[in-house]
Structure formats: C-alpha cells, structure tokens
C-alpha cells in the first residue's frame, strides 16, 4: 500500500508549477478566444465570428503599421544576424586573446542596459544627428533595431559554434583546401542551423519591440506594437484582440522554428 518514497517530492510544489503554467497562459488564451467573438465585449461570449479580423484587415492604419513592422524586422534581423555571425566566428573556438572579453561585453551591452535608457539615449543621439544633418527617415529606427538584434542572434550562433569541433575543418585544411573554401564548404553549412535560429530570434525581438521604437520612431513610422499601444490607450476593443492575436501567432511561429532548429543540434 505504501507508495515508494520519492526523494525529490516537496509538498505543494507540483500545484504551484501547474498554477504558474495556468497563470502564464490563461490571459493569453482569453485574449485569443475573444478575438473570435461576434460582439463588442471582450468578456461575454456570444458567437464565433471572424468579424474583428476582417475589420483589422480593412483598417489602413493596421495595414501600414504591419508593412513598416515587417520591413523593419527584415532589415534589422538581416544585418543583425550577419554581424552576429561574424562576431561569433571571431569569439569562439579560439584561445582567449587580448580584447576578447571586451568584445564579448560590447556585443552583449544592449542586453545589460534597461531598455528605457537605451531608448532615450538613442533618441538624444538621433535628434542631434537630425539637427546637424537634416536627414530624417526610417533609417534611424533600422539602426536602433539592428543594435539590439545583434546579441539575440549572437547567442544561438555562438552556442552552435561551440558545439562544433574543429576536426572537420582541420581535415579539409589537410586536404589543401584554402581557408575561404574551408569556411564556405565546411564551417558555413554546419553553422546554418545556428544562423537560422539566431535570425528567428532577431526577427522576433525586432517585431515585438515597443519602448525603443516608441522613442525613436518619427512621424509616419508607426509599427504594429506602437499602433496597438495607441489603440489600448483609446479604449479596449475586440479589434485589438484580433491584431494582437496575429502578432502573437507570428512570434510563436518564429520561436517554434527557433526551437526546432535548436533541437536538431542535440541529436
């Protein structure tokens, strides 16, 4: 009758764990469910409908914001991933050299400073540049986003590199492959899962950013999260739920790709 004594068990811990899982997902699920509600209310369910999605797609503001968000995320994730890949190649699989830890600290700098500080600091610099040169445009936003996508892309690429031994590259070199050929024929193909994972994270953090974008964005550069923030301030509508759901699904798809690519690594 006596159950086997479980060394690891602690009273109440499993309940708390399940509660946390519930608490993390219940609000999000509520939001998603009520985006399909055929009613103005976000708490009283009447009938399933895609009405709010149609309204969101018809909304010019949302369409424009989506276009800007995607453009911004593509450009910054593209450059962020390239720079992160290069930096990862220079900081892994080597004996520690002078300045390596400094380089490491600089790359991770955007993660260590509170976002609001980065946001107002970028605003100050860009305002100064705008004043001096008169140049305006979305380029500033792209620069600001590229900066903080680099450390996110860097992490999985670095992890992937550290899992790769140098043996294959050494074998290629032994067979007289020149360094560039070794890189493109051996290192790079092996590194692709890491690069894809990094690009996904870079894309997601750019797509989801609020604070830096809020401060740096000029007129007409409203991204989807900024649009949502403005809409929430004006009042809660199921249309916000619909747009939010679309953005959530987009993030989850990219993060799921990240996890799938990462998983392959351990096999």
């Amino acid at each position, binding site marked *: 009758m006596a159950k086997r004594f479980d060394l690891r068990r602690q009273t109440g811990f499993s309940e708390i*764990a399940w509660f946390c899982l519930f608490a993390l997902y219940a609000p999000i699920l509520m939001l998603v469910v009520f985006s399909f509600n055929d009613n103005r209310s976000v708490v009283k369910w009447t009938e399933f409908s895609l009405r709010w999605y149609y309204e969101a797609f018809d909304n010019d503001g949302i369409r424009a914001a989506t276009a800007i968000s995607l453009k911004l995320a593509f450009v910054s994730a593209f450059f962020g991933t390239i720079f992160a890949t290069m930096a990862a190649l220079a900081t892994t699989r080597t004996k520690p050299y002078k300045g390596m830890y400094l380089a490491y600290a600089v790359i991770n700098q955007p993660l260590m400073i509170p976002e609001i500080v980065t946001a*107002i600091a970028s605003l100050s610099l860009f305002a100064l540049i705008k004043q001096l040169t008169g140049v305006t445009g979305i380029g500033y936003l792209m620069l600001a986003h590229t900066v903080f996508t680099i450390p996110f892309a860097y992490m999985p690429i670095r992890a992937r590199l550290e899992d790769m031994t140098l043996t294959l590259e050494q074998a290629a070199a032994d067979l007289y492959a020149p360094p560039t050929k070794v890189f493109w024929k051996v290192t790079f193909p092996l590194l692709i899962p890491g690069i894809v994972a990094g690009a996904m994270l870079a894309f997601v953090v750019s797509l989801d950013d609020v604070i830096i974008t809020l401060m740096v964005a000029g007129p007409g550069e409203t991204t989807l999260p900024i649009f*949502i923030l403005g809409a929430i301030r004006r009042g809660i509508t199921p249309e916000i739920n619909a747009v*939010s759901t679309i953005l959530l699904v987009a993030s989850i798809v990219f993060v799921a790709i990240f996890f799938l690519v990462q998983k392959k690594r351990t096999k």
Partner: protein
Amino acid sequence: MVAPADISPTSDSQKLARARQIDARRKRNTRLYLLLPGLVIIGLFGLMPLSITLVYSFLKPGSYGGVEWVFSLDAYVQFFVERDIFDDTLSPNWAYISIFSRSIGLSFGATLGALILGFPTAYYIASKPAHQRNFWLFLITLPFWTNLLIRTYAMLIIIRDQGVINLALMNAGIIDKPISILYTDTAVFIGLIYSYLPFMVLPLYASLEKLDLRLIEAAYDLYASRFKVLTKIILPLAKPGIVAGCILVFIPGLGAYITPELLGGGKKLMIGNLIAIQFGSSRNWPFGSAAALILMAVVMLALLLYVRHGAKGARHG
C-alpha cells in the same frame, strides 16, 4: 614581434616559426575584420548614445524639448531637492524620491513573488523525466518571446473591473461590487511578476537540474524532514540560480515602462515612465537623462552583485 624580412630562414625550425607567425597574424586580422562591423555599430549606436545622455544630463532644457548648451547641475539637484520659489530654501523633493523608491519596492516585491512561484516550478520541472522537462521549459519560455505589450494587455483585460475575475466572483455571489485592482500598485505588482516569471524559472532550473540526489538521500537517511531537506540542502545548493533569477527579474522590473503604463494607468508612475515623460510632454531632456543615469547606476550595482555571487550559476539564454 614581426621578424625582419632580410633574415632568410635557414633551418626547418626557423621556417616553421616563421610560418606560425604569419598564420597567427592572419588569424588576428581575420578576427578583427569579423568583429569590426558588429562592434562599430553597437559602439556608435549603442554606447555613444549613452555618453550623449551623460552630457545632456549636465545641460539646461530647451523650451521645445531638446537641450540648451549651458552647463547646469539642475537635473541632478531637481531629482533630490526642491528649491522654494519664494525664499530659495532647499527641501527634499519627495515626489521623485517616492517614485524612485516605489520602483525599487515594487520591483523587489515582484522579484520575491516570482521567486516564491518560480522556485517550486523550477524544482518541479527539474524532477520530471528528461523528455517532459524540455516540453515544460518550452512552455515556460514561450511567453517570454511573445510580445510583452500584448501580454500586459491580456492581463489588463482580466483584472479590470469588468474583467473575468470580477465577473466570476460576482456571479458566484462572493462579492457584489467589483474589486478595483487596475490602476493600483497591486496591478503593477501582479503585472511585473507575470511579465518576468520566465526569467526566474530558467536560471533556477539550470542550477536545480544539476542537484546531486545523493545529498538529499543522505539527509533523509539522517532523519531530516522534507522541510529540513528543502531549507538545508536544496536551497543552499540552488543559491547561484536564486541570485541569477532575482537579478534577472529585478533589473527589467526596475526599468519597466509598459507594465506601469498600462496597469498603473499613468497614475502609479515608475522610474521608467518618469524618464519617458521627460522626453515627451514634460520636455525636460536633461532631467530625463539624469533620471536614466541614476536608474543605470542602480542596475550596475545589481549586476555587480550578480557577478560577485551568482555568475557561477547558469547564464541565461
């Protein structure tokens, strides 16, 4: 270090040394070129802005935003003391000090709350079979990668007066008037825990996963109770994870902007909102810069603590 070119290598060992030198130099150059673009862009648009902020914090505010290039310590003075407009006497400026201490208090409270919820969760995950662990970790991490604004909005819908919680309680007849949580410190507190709980669970899990079961077994053999095992064995062993988790929740909590903005309704300000307002409607960039630097000083202090005590724990990410 470069060998003079006129010395022609005579022996094989010299040739080898020479080749090694050339190889080392080439590697050094490659490394430099690889690092350059990333470091330059972060340096120019990540680090340089911070020095601009430092400079701005010592200037006077411009009338329409921006700054006037006149040296002034007003921004820092204004943060701590208030000058009486009639008799020029100085008194402590409680308005900003209270916003600052509220931020620290709320962030600290949320860190404790996240620890109380996160520790059992991380422990439970670590005690699961390996294949289930990954799935649990995925579920805990996923909200972190979704939009913070949207998650906060979801929380807002739930806790407001006409929200699910209040409706359910009223329908059940437990209360007859909605409990007002939204736009209070409690709302911000709940929102902060909700936002940053994954940050707590991940490092805790990383240190609990490595827990040596034999130590627990030994403690039970010596007639320790479950509670004793928890407080005397598990908690001390998980200390690096606890420190890392607390830092990872405290720092973003302290600088939070979205959570107090939406759930505090702009009335219950935190330092992040105070800074943002200076660059918006208040048009006092120097004061905003000074507040940002004060915030950063507190964050650096916390990070220093982390490096001293918790860096041996798992790195997040």
